[in-house]
């Protein structure tokens, strides 16, 4: 018996780690939180849904597709500004092009929120380039085409070789970047909850290795 | 038995043919662009007529009245297209056997048409005459119930053409294969045709046995199409059992071929070049004509002479030469055979 996990791209590595600790077999489907939600809505045989924000969880909950009791935050991360490895930029204001996730990707929503709260949005608005997901932001920065980009800490850790960290965005500048987990109705709820438990019980140190903390 | 009545309008061309032939080989004879190929296309079902009736040996191919229009694949015709239309991707053997399953027949035909050695070649590797023979073989190999031949020998040299005339006739007779033959060669029409249908501008003008229609074409246009060249205006002055006697404008009496004419009728006399008899005989016409030009041709000497101011072309056997009398400017005596002087109705 296997568990089907529909996982937001943002916590891909953490979820895979959890799967290593899990007794049963896990089948993953990675995508952006939104697209996964839509697949579930269309009747995909998912057991677990892992989203990068609350918005898509609510979306499915409203449609009555999730086991409401199982909805719980699973991990939390930070937003960081990264620049190309050889960049001489000292502040976000010096960047001519800034890559962020688009409004749909949770990472993009967090970033815009932060820029607005930091009173940078008006000035930087016209320098923004929107990426479909967080990894694309990292790729643009890594290849030097964007002068800076806003990503999760976990992505910075992944792309460490070709980007450097300019600064960590203040916690208060955006709503907390929290990932949620839930079991899907009509799926294998028992196994799903077992998997979610494994995720919840990951040791703190292990989560930090991937750039996450317990929420 | 072949019956064809077809109407078809094309932009700037109207086809309106109608003939019925009991003979085995029916020759369609007409100037270029008269609708011969179009007629064959209608018979084969390649072109759909606007109206009409097409019947071969009792099998109705097409009838606008009865609402019949047999598909080409059910008509069983062997069609040699004027431009051959060989399948470019198939070699000679595959082309020939395309419509038939009998290998021996195909082999026999290839041998007969002297293209055995070309079996493996593609059409693009064939000469014009070779293509034509492959097309002929393909048409025959399909074991058709009707043969449509659109100028089947036009690209062949004389020797081979004569041989093939014999062979094709043998096949046609052996299988009692009704055939529509298009040719521009009047001698071929004589050689092969049981019936000749003369067409012009999309219409059938006349029909008859080759010799009969050639020597009694009836109208000037038909005579012209069949190759008559010199016409002399005259008035019928006597009609007897086997001759029509006419009088020319210049008052000369000429004995001509018999025909359905009345005394006093205005007619045209067609002077056939080979009407020249070499000896005076009882029946022949004696004419003194001024020689205008003498040309040596291959099998004949072509003399252009003046008859009442009009040019007349006469052919003499070459063995008569050299002949001092036949020099331009001289007046020479010619004897013309009445049987080779057809009389035609003068058209308005």
């Amino acid at each position: 018996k296997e568990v089907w996990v529909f996982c937001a791209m943002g916590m891909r590595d953490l979820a895979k780690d959890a799967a290593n600790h899990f007794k049963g077999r896990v089948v993953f489907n990675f995508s952006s939180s939104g697209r996964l939600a839509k697949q579930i809505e269309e009747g995909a045989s998912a057991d677990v849904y892992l989203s990068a924000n609350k918005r898509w969880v609510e979306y499915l909950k409203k449609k009555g597709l999730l086991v409401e009791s199982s909805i719980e935050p699973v991990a939390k991360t930070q937003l960081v500004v990264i620049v190309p490895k050889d960049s001489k930029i000292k502040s976000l204001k010096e960047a001519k092009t800034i890559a962020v996730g688009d409004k749909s990707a949770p990472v993009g929503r967090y970033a815009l929120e932060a820029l607005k709260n930091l009173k940078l949005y008006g000035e930087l608005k016209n320098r923004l380039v929107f990426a479909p997901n967080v990894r694309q932001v990292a790729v643009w920065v890594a290849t030097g085409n964007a002068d800076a980009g806003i990503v999760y800490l976990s992505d910075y850790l992944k792309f460490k070789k070709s980007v450097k960290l300019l600064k960590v965005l203040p916690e208060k500048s955006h709503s907390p970047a929290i990932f949620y987990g839930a079991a899907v109705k009509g799926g294998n709820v028992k196994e799903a909850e077992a998997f979610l438990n494994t995720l919840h019980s990951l040791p703190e140190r292990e989560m930090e290795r991937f750039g996450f903390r317990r929420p | 038995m072949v019956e064809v009545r077809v109407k078809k309008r094309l932009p700037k061309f109207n086809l309106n043919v109608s003939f019925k032939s009991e003979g085995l080989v029916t020759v369609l004879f007409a100037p270029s662009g008269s609708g011969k190929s179009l007629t064959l296309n209608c018979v084969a079902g390649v072109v759909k007529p606007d109206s009409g009736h097409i019947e071969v040996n009792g099998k109705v191919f097409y009838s606008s009245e009865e609402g019949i229009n047999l598909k080409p694949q059910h008509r069983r015709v062997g069609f040699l297209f004027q431009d051959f239309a060989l399948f470019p991707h198939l070699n000679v053997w595959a082309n020939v056997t395309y419509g038939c399953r009998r290998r021996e027949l195909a082999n026999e035909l290839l041998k007969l048409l002297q293209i055995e050695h070309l079996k493996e070649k593609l059409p693009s590797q064939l000469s014009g005459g070779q293509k034509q023979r492959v097309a002929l073989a393909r048409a025959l190999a399909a074991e058709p119930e009707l043969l449509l031949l659109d100028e089947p020998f036009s690209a062949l040299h004389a020797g081979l053409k004569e041989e093939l005339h014999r062979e094709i006739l043998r096949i046609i007779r052996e299988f009692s294969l009704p055939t529509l033959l298009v040719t521009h060669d009047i001698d071929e029409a004589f050689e092969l045709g049981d019936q000749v249908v003369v067409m012009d501008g999309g219409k059938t003008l006349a029909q008859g046995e080759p010799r009969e229609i050639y020597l009694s074409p009836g109208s000037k246009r038909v005579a012209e199409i069949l190759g008559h060249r010199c016409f002399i205006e005259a008035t019928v002055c006597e009609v007897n059992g086997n001759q029509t006697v006419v009088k020319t404008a210049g008052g000369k009496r000429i004995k001509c071929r018999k025909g359905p004419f009345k005394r006093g009728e205005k007619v045209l006399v067609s002077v056939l070049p080979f009407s020249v008899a070499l000896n005076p005989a009882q029946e022949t016409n004696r004419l003194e004509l001024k020689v205008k030009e003498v040309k040596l041709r291959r099998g004949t000497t072509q003399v252009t002479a003046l008859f009442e101011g009009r040019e007349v072309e006469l052919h003499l056997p070459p063995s008569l030469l050299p002949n001092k009398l036949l020099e331009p400017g001289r007046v020479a005596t010619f004897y013309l055979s009445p049987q080779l002087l057809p009389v035609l109705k003068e058209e308005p």
Partner: protein
Amino acid sequence: MGLDPLALFSVKLSLKVAISSTAIVTLLGTPLAYMLATRDFPFKNAVDALITLPLVFPPTVTGYILLLLLGRKGPIGELLYTLFHKGIVFTWYAAVVAAAVASFPIFVKSARAAIEAVDKRLLTVSYTLGKGEVNTFFRIVLPLAKRGIVAAVILSFARALGEFGATLMLAGYIPFKTNTIPLEIYSSVSNGDFERANLLTAVTAAIALVTIYAINRLSNRSKQW
């Protein structure tokens, strides 16, 4: 530098998907192209346009539309479910459907142009030689349109091999199940594992080149079909 088991699986899967898709597209597309090239029928232009749409739509949209049609609640999906008691979404069949739909317009357009270039008189000649339409199609139309149809097959195969957007939507990225090479490459890139992505890209290129070469050779060798 070798391929990990997942990558190896994706290569096998992609081959299976691309070949199946190309086979389906060729079998369905050739008669359609023939009809479009030789017949006049009502709504011909509409059919022609409809086929072209999957090319115009961004693959994600195509995928989405397919999901609506083939999903458990979609009209076709429901039918499949009642008939076979399972759906095709998120299976490798879904990847085949996505690839087929994406390459169908390319195939039909190219094949149609190739068939239109065949001298129609030769079909007539074939009819007069007693061959019906099917026979004529196989012995005259197909061989003479061969170059164009082979080009169409190659284009379809290549397009199927590279199909990403619609596949992701319809089949999802499921390791050891629906992870075609493009999805696997995407996954590698998102993992920052550029080395693996490059390797897989090279494999794709190799497959494409070998296949194109093979198709060309095969079609040149057989002068007659």
